[in-house]
């Protein structure tokens, strides 16, 4: 159930606008993720993208009055971390079990 905690339209606008800008920055990360050249560069770019996604989720949660988005952000933050560590470990012991 959405709670009416946002005090004014200004704050909502700020959050939604910031979320849009964060999205642009996240999209810029695709350049590094695609170009590489190393696997680590790609993981790094996706990691930054993931952090940005977490922030976007939180901003949208506040801007749209959907606190449940924060739970998704929490899960996403943890998955993002696991992704980075797992891929790093995998690239080191290629073919080994994680």
């Amino acid at each position, binding site marked *: 159930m959405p*709670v009416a*905690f*946002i*005090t*004014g339209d*200004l*704050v909502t606008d*700020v*959050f939604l606008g*910031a979320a849009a*800008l*964060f999205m642009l*920055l996240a999209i*810029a*990360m695709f*350049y*590094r993720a695609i170009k*590489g*050249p*190393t*696997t*680590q*560069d790609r*993981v*790094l*770019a996706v*990691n*930054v993208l993931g*952090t*940005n996604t*977490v*922030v976007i989720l*939180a*901003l949208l*949660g*506040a801007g749209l009055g959907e*606190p449940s988005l*924060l*739970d998704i*952000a*929490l899960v996403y*933050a*943890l998955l*993002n*971390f696991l992704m*980075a*560590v797992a891929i*790093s*470990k995998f*690239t*080191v*012991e*290629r073919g080994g079990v994680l």
Partner: protein
Amino acid sequence: MIETLRVGAIIVLVVLGLFFTFVSATGVLRLPDVYSRAHTASQADTLGAGFALAAVALALGFGTTSYKTVLLLFFIFITNPTAAHAISRAADEQGIEPWTTDDDRTDRDLYEASEVETDGGVATNGGEQP
């Protein structure tokens, strides 16, 4: 009065968050090799996310939802440097050399120099594993 102050603080925090995330994005696109990119990816990005989440926490006020923001902040501050460490460590283990100022090779050259070595490294590792 307090309300305007709060709104002002929120705006300032969001702008700061955007600024540092922008710095981090610029760094990841602009810096010459994977190690230097890991710097901005772990640091400027963490701070940017920190400011933005602080703004969200401030907007939500006290309550169960803003606890989650604080928790999120805590996670990001713990996990981001660890992830950056794991990534740069993996790069180091693959034998990718850090770029230095007087080095005229590009990141691709460094990577290709390392790729061959990596194969050798894996073979040695496999042989020596107990």
